[in-house]
């Protein structure tokens, strides 16, 4: 088990290094950090001083090493756009994104997976057909269009829910939570639905496809030939075998939710990391972009590690190899 985790971590390292290299290259070759940090009337001596101070006169691999060292400590310098430490900016925005992503992920998994299983088992019932058609509409509905529609109906016309922002937040240490106030929860509803619908419909379709695949296998047919009950076949044998690919899918979905949080946050002006990132891309704010890039890679690596671990627990064939 420990060996398994370590081997997976070692496999994830190259991914992180590549991303770090890209971030570093962004820092070094794009734009001019010195110009960005100096005032207009600085002298040439000031400039050279700063270059030495920032270590920009050293060979690239020394700079890269320093970059990695800083990154590990969460040190990414100042945002060009906001002139504040990037780490502080991100720490400020992270809770908003995480709360949004968590709610959307919970909705996706709790609704999408059961729907997929249902439509897989009862593939010929009219309910399944209806759900599948509706799900295709969901997959074809771009997130921002859905967000707009929801705003139009529930914020502009009905006036029930706010169209932007997080509402009131409560400070729990450094974490600012919107989950504890009524206005915070109300503000969360529309963005969470917007973010969840696409992933939810996608996961329904994928789980259904996996379920159908498993139901066609010989061992399910053999289980029927042994006279086991439908319940035990569908929810025992078939479901457990479906779980293995579904874990991968769910991992990917989680990644998708974090990626599409960028869009949702923009539509609802949700003060999270994704909104920050898009504003940074617009303003070529490299330090923030680089930090976001690294952070999000780390998140994906962690998700993948979790997926691998779950695999390991579900599938005895993997356990046996070790």
């Amino acid at each position, binding site marked *: 088990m420990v060996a398994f985790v370590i081997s997976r971590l070692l496999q994830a390292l190259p991914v992180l290094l*590549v991303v770090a290299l890209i971030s570093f290259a*962004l820092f070094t070759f794009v734009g001019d950090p010195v110009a960005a940090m100096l005032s207009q009337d600085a002298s040439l001596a000031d400039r050279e001083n700063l270059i030495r101070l920032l270590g920009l006169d050293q060979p690239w691999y020394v700079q890269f090493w320093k970059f990695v060292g800083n990154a590990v400590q969460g040190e990414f310098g100042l945002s060009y756009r906001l002139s504040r430490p990037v780490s502080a900016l991100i720490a400020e925005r992270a809770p908003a994104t995480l709360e949004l992503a968590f709610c959307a992920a919970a909705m996706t998994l709790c609704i999408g997976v059961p729907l997929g299983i249902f439509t897989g088992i009862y593939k010929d019932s009219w309910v399944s057909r209806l759900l599948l058609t509706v799900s295709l509409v969901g997959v074809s509905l771009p997130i921002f*269009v859905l967000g*707009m529609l929801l705003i*139009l109906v529930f914020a502009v016309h009905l006036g029930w829910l706010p169209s932007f922002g997080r509402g009131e937040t409560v400070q729990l240490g450094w974490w600012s939570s919107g989950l504890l106030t009524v206005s915070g929860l109300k503000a969360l509803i529309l963005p969470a639905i917007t973010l969840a619908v696409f992933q939810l419909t996608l996961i329904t379709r994928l789980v259904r496809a996996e379920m159908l695949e498993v139901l066609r296998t010989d061992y399910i047919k053999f289980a029927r030939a042994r006279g086991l009950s439908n319940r035990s076949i569908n929810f025992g044998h078939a479901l457990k075998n479906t779980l293995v690919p579904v874990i991968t899918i769910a991992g990917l979905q989680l990644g*998708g939710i974090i*990626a*599409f949080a960028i869009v949702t946050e923009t*539509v609802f002006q949700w003060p999270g990391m994704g909104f920050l990132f898009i504003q940074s891309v617009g303003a070529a704010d490299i330090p923030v972009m680089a930090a976001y890039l690294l952070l999000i890679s780390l998140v994906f690596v962690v998700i993948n590690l979790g997926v691998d671990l779950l695999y390991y627990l579900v599938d005895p064939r993997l356990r046996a190899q070790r």
Partner: protein
Amino acid sequence: MNRVARFLDSDLWWSFRTSPVAVASALVALVCILGAVLAPWLAPHNVLDLASVDLMDAFKPPFTEAGWTLGSDDQGRDVLSAIMFGGRTSLLVGICAVLFSTVVGVTLGLTAGYLGGTVDALLMRMADVQLTFPAFLVALLVDGIARAALPQEVHERIALGVVVFAIGISTWPQIARTVRGSTLVERNKEYVLAARVIGLGNLRIMATHVLPNVLGPVLVIATLNLGLAIITEATLSFLGVGVPPTQPSLGTLIRIGNDFLMSGEWWIAIFPGIALVAMVLSVNLLGDWLRDALNPRLR
């Protein structure tokens, strides 16, 4: 039997004819494509010609005035015409991106599957790494990095190409994996071995023997990818990091309209949104049908 007659007798055509959903979505897709391609000739107004746009025409509500069926936007542009021209850009970017990713994916997949060994391991490792990240994020990052890295005037000139590249590169691993899988199966079949024995070159064998056998699944993925590419482009443009404002796509129109949603001019955003969804939905339905038709086992 000639080719046409053979096609009309084929299972594929039969399953198309008997599927009302497939026929309906093909019709919608056709309307979208024709409207987009023929926009310069069919559209009531040329929205790309700034001289013909008059601020006096701004904010006309829909269904009130002839020639302005779907109303006008804040600049006095006809929304219907803008949709047709915008659809043109969306479709162009989508198709180019899918072509790009398909060519890259098929080439790399064939190479990896047919040659095997180190090449295979390297390519698939690359695909694995990229698949760690959602395709949309890859497209956004590639686009964002290009935006930051290229000098502004260079970027403006090739912005459309950058978007095509960003979207295309974000979906190659999926195609490459599928093609590699099918190639591995085909490679060990006897006709390929026979072709090798009589001394045909690798390239020739791949092109004439292996490629035709992997086209079915590729066609399905490419169709579904087209829907995805159109959505991705629209999303990037909505975020303001997609196609340049001089060549507005449906996403750009929705971005503009989004600012007027709260003030009651809903049509500026909603009609392009409907057009976008209709386009993507019809493509997705076609792709879905195609997958079922080519894999009767899956029904």
